[in-house]
């Protein structure tokens, strides 16, 4: 099944892209290390290690690039499909939860996450999903925050929970 949220590429093209990205990254690493203190032989500074790694990574990504360009046959043409609507949705909602976690607090964030994911993955109806999400969020809060003393934010509900 093919749909808009999916990207199709080949192993060879993917490796070439990866190698180019890594090459750019190594340039960035070297540029960043350039600003750092070099120190002396007896007091090697902060720059030395990242600088060396940057050059090594650059070399190895050149190697990767060469290998990928020369890649032929079955391995090169192997199709690779990336993405699926639910993958993007999952990443998106996790990202949102990360952003609002401290502000909304654990209970609301967890309810949000569970509701969206359960609704998306399963065929449950909305009211069942909501009930399950609220339940999961409260039960996990009781277990982790109250029983196991893990620190979880109370967020906007703080005045009520204290």
């Amino acid at each position, binding site marked *: 099944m093919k749909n808009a949220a999916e990207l199709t590429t080949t192993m060879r093209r993917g490796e070439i892209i990866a190698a180019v990205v890594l090459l750019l990254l190594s340039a960035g690493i070297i540029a960043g290390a350039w600003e750092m*203190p070099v120190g002396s032989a007896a007091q090697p500074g902060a720059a030395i290690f990242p600088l060396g790694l940057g050059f090594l990574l650059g070399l190895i990504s050149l190697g990767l690039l060469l290998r990928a360009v020369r890649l032929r046959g079955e391995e090169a043409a192997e199709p690779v499909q990336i993405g699926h609507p639910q993958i993007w949705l999952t990443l998106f909602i996790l990202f949102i939860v990360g952003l609002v976690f401290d502000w909304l607090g654990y209970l609301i964030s967890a309810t949000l996450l569970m509701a969206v994911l359960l609704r998306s993955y399963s065929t449950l109806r909305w009211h069942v999903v909501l009930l399950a999400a609220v339940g999961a969020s409260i039960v996990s*809060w*009781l277990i982790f*925050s*109250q*029983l196991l*003393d893990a*620190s979880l934010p109370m967020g906007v509900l703080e*005045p*009520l*929970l*204290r």
Partner: protein
Amino acid sequence: MKNFRLSLRSSLPVLAVAAGLLSGPTVGAAEKYPSRPIEIIVPTGAGGGTDLVFRQLADLVGPILGTNVVVSNRPGGGGVIGTIAITRAKPDGYILGGLWNAPLTMTPHLNPVPYTPQDYLPISMADTSPTVLCTKKDFPANNGKEFIDYLKKNPNKFTYGNDGVGGTIQLTMERIFLPLGVKARAVPFSGAGETLKNFLGGHIDIYGGSMTTILPYVKDGSAKCLLVTSPRSVSSMPDAANLTELGVPDRSTLLWHGLIAPKGLPADRAALLEKAFQQAARSPQFREYMESRGITVEGSSSADFRKLIDSEYAAMGEVMAQIGLGKK
């Protein structure tokens, strides 16, 4: 344990709202303090020496204040992350900070941090302890003066372990070395334990760090401590010269633990907290706990604590400038 406190509370939201309305912000001045648990943010991981000091204090100060006092750990960035959280907290006396030297008086000179000594209110310093320099038993010096003379005669020959470049131990030692003209190579380790291990293995010449860690080796005779960073001598380290004997009594830096609050804390609450923490620090339990490891209990006043922080902050800035550290 505090299990299921929530279930009880959340079943009474109506009451909570009602209570909130009754004691609302309009009557702030008259509100009873403390009326709910107080949190001490300790900017280090759980279970370390610093963390334990504040957990002890929290247990002792709770009954005095008549509320629960809990420690929460906020590690990271050598204490900077937790300190930021403290200085940015609401100054209502429900969030305090449990600090030690580095994040307040040292790190700010080394790296940019978004707070200054004016962003917090020192409440009370709980305890202090000097640090020591120690050598193996065959080192050709047997007292503090010989030790310093020998180091002076051999500049940059000996290595001393410490807790990191720009860390408490290095700055404490360089602050003494500078006026005495001593030059030794500082090898940074992650703490006293790692320093001790490398010292015992013979990879460095001199141990620099807390007294507690090296004490067993002084007792069994394999190490001798020749310098203590306080103006007075310490009974468990008879060979160690103090700074008065070395002629630099004003160059002393002690490790300390103390309570701070975000600036803007109402004066009456600050006074209440100051008294309560002084009382807790001077309690026999705390004294016994600290003195068993060679730490002196202080329980200082807020004003004295402020003075110490300010002078240490200035001194550390100078030392760093002189040894070529500091903000780039």
